Structure formats: structure tokens, C-alpha cells
């Protein structure tokens, strides 16, 4: 039983990471209909920004976090300009291909700029651990679910109770009607992209002290994020949160009981199964697309 709790705890940590990355993606995907494969690079660049600021420039964590936020805003703006403003009128797959190209550009720039060797943010908190009964988690890992809960709650409140939040939800339902009701569609699009980049960048920053950072970490995480988005239902923030945790836990249990090699495959098998059997996701509502 103890072991199972530990596995669950590990799963929740990983799952929280997935949630942070996936929620941004589900917003962009659900509200704007844009598939952004470069989303993983937001995560990767958030990690590198934090690392470089702390290790090379010796900044304290708070300053590094501010740096990450700035970089994320810039990336969000750029991505929106390319993937949404320019390609909105085209068919759905244009954004996929363009975002792939963008991902390749960002990844290789990072490779050329930072080199392929892995880096890790080692701070004085690195060796502190927290014991909760039979479960042991390093402090930096525990921070992740905590941050996730905080950020997602804030996001949820914003979506529900602010004008911006309502605009986002209106756009998700019907962009033209939303505009007729006074929603400034272009501004909302930019905000959506920026929020998605912020969440992914913060996730990357948090993870840079837990896992190694190198230029290709964006690849796997974006695929996992898409899995979570689909499982949770496109555009469904709460769904993505639940699905992200679920995926993290399933992967952890698979690794423990079935074999580590299967861990990555299980997510992909699940996503294919879900797309075949219940394309609106586990928590989504059926949607019509003409």
C-alpha cells in the first residue's frame, strides 16, 4: 500500500506538469482552433531562460521567474502573429505544419545557442525532501502540484468571473457571434496565446530543477500535452486538469507494474483509443464541426 501511495505521488507530480502544459494548449486549441506544435518549445525555452539567468547571471529565483514571464510573453505574441493572425483563414492543417516549422526553428536555435548537453538547475533547495507518511518527495517536486493548483485555480476564476474570461468562453462557442457582442476577437486571441505560453514557460522553469534540461525536451511533452487535451476535451480547462493528473498516474503505475519501457507507449495507445471511441474526450461535450 505504501508503495502504491508513492507511485501515486510520483504520478501526481508528473501529472501536474502535464496539466500546466496542456491547459495552455487546450485554450489555444479550443478557443482559437489552432494546433500549436511549438507549444513544447515554450516549455523548453522557459526552462532554459530560468537556467541561464540563475546559473550564468547568478540572479535570484524571483528575478529569473520574471525573466521567464517576459520571454513567454514574447513567444506568445510571436506565435499568435504567425499561427493565428496569418493562418486563420486557411485550412486546419496549415497551422499544424507552420507550428511544426516553428518548433524546428526554436529547437535548433536552442541547440545552436545552448549546446546539446543537459543542464540542471541546482539550488540550495535541491536536497531538501518532504515526508508525508510513507510518501517521500523532494521539495522541488512537491512545488509542482502546489503551483499547478494555484495557477489553475486562478485561471478558472478568471475564466468564470472576469470580462476577459467570459470573452474567451464566448469565442470558444462562436467567434462571429462573440464579435457581434463586443468581444475584441483579435485581442482575446493574443491574450490566449500569451497565457498558454506563460503556463508552459512556468512549467518548464519549475521542472528545470527537477529534470535535466536540453533542447529536445519539448518534443515528448507536447505529444503528452496533446494526449491530455484530447482526453480532457478540447477547450475544457477542468477536463485538462483531470486528464493530466490521470495520465501522470497511469504512466507511473504502468512503469511500476507493467514495465518502464511501456510507459510512453501507453499514453499514445490511450489517445488513439479515445479518438476512436469518444472523440470529445472523457469529459467533453459532443461538439459539431461542419
Amino acid at each position, binding site marked *: 500500500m505504501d*508503495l502504491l501511495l*508513492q*507511485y501515486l505521488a*510520483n*504520478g501526481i*507530480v*508528473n501529472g501536474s506538469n502535464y496539466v500546466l502544459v496542456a491547459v495552455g494548449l487546450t485554450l489555444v486549441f479550443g478557443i482559437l482552433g489552432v494546433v500549436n506544435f511549438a507549444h513544447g518549445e515554450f516549455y523548453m525555452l522557459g526552462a532554459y531562460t530560468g537556467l541561464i539567468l540563475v546559473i550564468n547571471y547568478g540572479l535570484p529565483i524571483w528575478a529569473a521567474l520574471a525573466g521567464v514571464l517576459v520571454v513567454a510573453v514574447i513567444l506568445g505574441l510571436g506565435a499568435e502573429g504567425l499561427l493565428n493572425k496569418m493562418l486563420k483563414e486557411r485550412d486546419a492543417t496549415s497551422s499544424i505544419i507552420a507550428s511544426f516549422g516553428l518548433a524546428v526553428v526554436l529547437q*535548433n536555435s536552442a*541547440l545552436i545557442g545552448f*549546446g*546539446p*548537453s*543537459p543542464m*540542471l538547475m*541546482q539550488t540550495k533547495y*535541491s*536536497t531538501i*525532501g518532504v515526508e508525508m507518511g510513507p510518501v*517521500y518527495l*523532494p521539495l522541488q517536486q512537491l512545488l509542482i502540484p502546489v503551483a499547478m493548483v494555484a495557477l489553475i485555480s486562478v485561471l478558472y476564476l478568471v475564466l468564470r468571473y472576469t470580462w476577459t474570461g467570459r470573452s474567451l468562453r464566448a469565442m470558444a462557442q462562436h467567434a462571429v457571434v462573440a464579435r457581434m457582442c463586443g468581444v475584441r476577437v483579435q485581442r482575446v486571441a493574443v491574450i490566449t496565446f500569451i497565457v498558454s505560453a506563460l503556463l508552459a514557460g512556468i512549467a518548464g522553469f519549475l*521542472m528545470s530543477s*527537477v*529534470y*535535466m534540461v*536540453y533542447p*529536445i*525536451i519539448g518534443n*515528448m511533452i507536447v505529444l503528452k500535452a496533446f494526449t491530455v487535451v484530447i482526453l480532457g476535451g478540447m477547450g475544457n480547462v477542468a477536463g485538462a486538469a483531470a486528464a493530466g493528473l490521470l495520465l501522470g498516474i497511469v504512466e*507511473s503505475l504502468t*512503469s*511500476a507494474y507493467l*514495465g*518502464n*519501457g511501456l510507459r*510512453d507507449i501507453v499514453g499514445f495507445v490511450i489517445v488513439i483509443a479515445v479518438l476512436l471511441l469518444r472523440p470529445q474526450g472523457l469529459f467533453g461535450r459532443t461538439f459539431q464541426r461542419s
Partner: protein
Amino acid sequence: MSRISRRHMLGLLGAGIALPALVKAQDSSPIRIGCMLPLSGNGSIEGNQVFKGVKFAVAEVNAAGGVLGRKIELAVEDDESNTSKGVLAVRKLIEQEHVPLIIGTYASAVVVASMKVAKELKVPMLTGGSTGAIATDANTPGDPWFFRFFSDSTGQGYDTANAIINKFHAKRVAILHDTTGYGTDLAKQTTEVVQGAGGEIVANESYNIGDQDFSTILTRIRTLKPDVVYIGGWAADGATIVRQAASVGLRTQFVGSGSMLSDDFIKLAGPASENFAVATAYEASTPNKVGRAFGERFRKEYGYDPGMLNALGYYSAAIGIEALRRVGKPDGAAIQQMLANGMKDFPIGLGPEGTTADFNDKGSVDYPYFIAIIKNGKRVLDH
């Protein structure tokens, strides 16, 4: 549409025909030797480390006046660990760059396919880090065209497994290996030897390179109480594993492979690297005088001790260039003969004291590996 495609194609063909002539016209004093490594894509971290060693060797040779009165230049190709790119790159290096020898490559599967072409075009290849037995096994005995100056992964695995049993007296061994040829071969070899000596393999799990989360699998292994955990792979993942093992409370003897001794590894693994043991052919404090001297020169140049991959790259280039010097001209076939038979006296820095580039029938040099242990953040060789 068709007019354009025809013209387009003719133009391309014309350019392609003209290109070799253009390249020949520029062929002046420096001798170009080929270097094919994965510099991007899979294996690029390792490929870049090997490349550093190669460049260092070439720089040293040039600083001493070059070879046969000419400077050495590297013609570099990135094969991305991709067989079809490798095969194409070899032809390009030989026919466009006219290299008399090629240092490469790292992925053993790419080596096997590329060797065929190199042999057909009469240019020998020296390993760029490839350790798989399949590479030297593909040589015709007595007439090797691929040379590797250290034991293949079978030999490495064997030495490590022996250390596990004899030195660490392990009866229960857990294995974690990556999915490359290197990791898989090591795991297989270790399994055979340990089981042959009556030991038990309590776990044999694989991971993909770059996997980040091992907490779950390490927690599970902890419950199995192994005497030794063997990691088959390279430094970056080894560091992640060791670090996470410490945080899940898995305390036992860890034995590693490959470059898991490098300064990089020690830095990334942090205090968890204490008592970590690795079977290695090269370590800066090696008893091999030639190797120690190399380590010192490298450190003077770059500010840190070379790792096994750097040493690999260095000696691949050094052996190749020396063979070129002895032959007296950039003739691939003659260099191959020299490598196969004429380098018995050339000392190299890997392996125990006195190791030389004495290639056997299959193009390999076999010697036992050391065990090095990390104590207080420093490597100590175990004699």
C-alpha cells in the same frame, strides 16, 4: 509544368556534374580526413564529445607542423545516426573530399552499412565511438576496414559483470539500460555473466534516452533490495538515475558504463555520485602514462579533464593520422594495410599501461577495462 521540371532537373544534373570538378580545382595543400558523426539528432550529445577529441588531435598535429609537410583538415559530415544519411555521407567524403580515411561513426547500425561503402571505395574507417560487436563482426577476418581500439560492448559488459560479481560480491543485480545498441548489448552481456556465475537478475528495465522520470521504477527496484544496480547507457541519463535514486532512498552499489565518470556526470549527479563505480577504458588518472599525458594536455587546453568519449575521438584521429604519416601518402588502401598490420608499436592512452594500436584480425583491440570509483567528487582507479 513539365517544361519547368525538365529544365529544372537538367540544371540540377549539370550543377551536380560540375561540382566534383570545382572541388578538385580547390584541392591544394592541406590533407583532408573524413569525420562522420551524429552531430544532431540521436546520439548527438555523444557525437559532439567525440568530435571535441578529434578536433583536439588535429589541432595538436597541425601545431607540430602537420603531416608530410601538410596541414590536416577535417571534412565533417553529420549522419544524424541515420543509416541512409551515413551511406551517402561516406560516398561524399570519399569522392568529393577525397579523404584517405574516415573517423566515424557512433551508431553501430550506421557503421555496418557505411563500412560496406567505405570498403568498396577502399577507404578505412576508425570508430567514432561505435562499440557494438556487430561493427567489427562485419569485418572479413584478416582484412578489416573498420577499426576500433577498445573492446566491443560484449567485452565491456563482461568486464563489468565480473567486477559486479567478484569485487562487489553481488548476488542480486538490477539492470537499467537504454534502448540503444550500446545499452541493450551491455545489459544482455551482464545478464549472461551474472546468471552464469549463479547470480540473480532481479529486474531488467529499459528506458528511452532522455527519459526524465525514473522515480517510479527506482522505487520499485528499491523494494527488490538489489546488491548492485547496473546502468547501461551514457552519462546524462546515468546522472538522472543516480540523483533520483538518492531521492527515493535507493541506497546500494551503483555500477555504470560509458561516460558515467565524466566531470559532467559528477556535476549533474551531485552528491549522489559518491561511490559510483564504472568500468571504463579511460580516466584522467589512468595508470597508462600516455593516457595521463593526454589528459593533462587536454585539461590545459579546455580547462577540464577529458572523458572517455573525448579520449575516443582523440585516439581515433591520432591513430589514423599516424598511419597516414607512416604510409607517406594519402592512399586509403595503403592506410588500411598499415592499420591492420603496422601499428603494433603505437601507444594509445586507453586501457592499461602499455596498450598499443595492435589491431587483431577483426579490427579490434581487446584489453580489460578498469573499474573507477567516485570518491569525494573525484575519480579513483581501483587496481
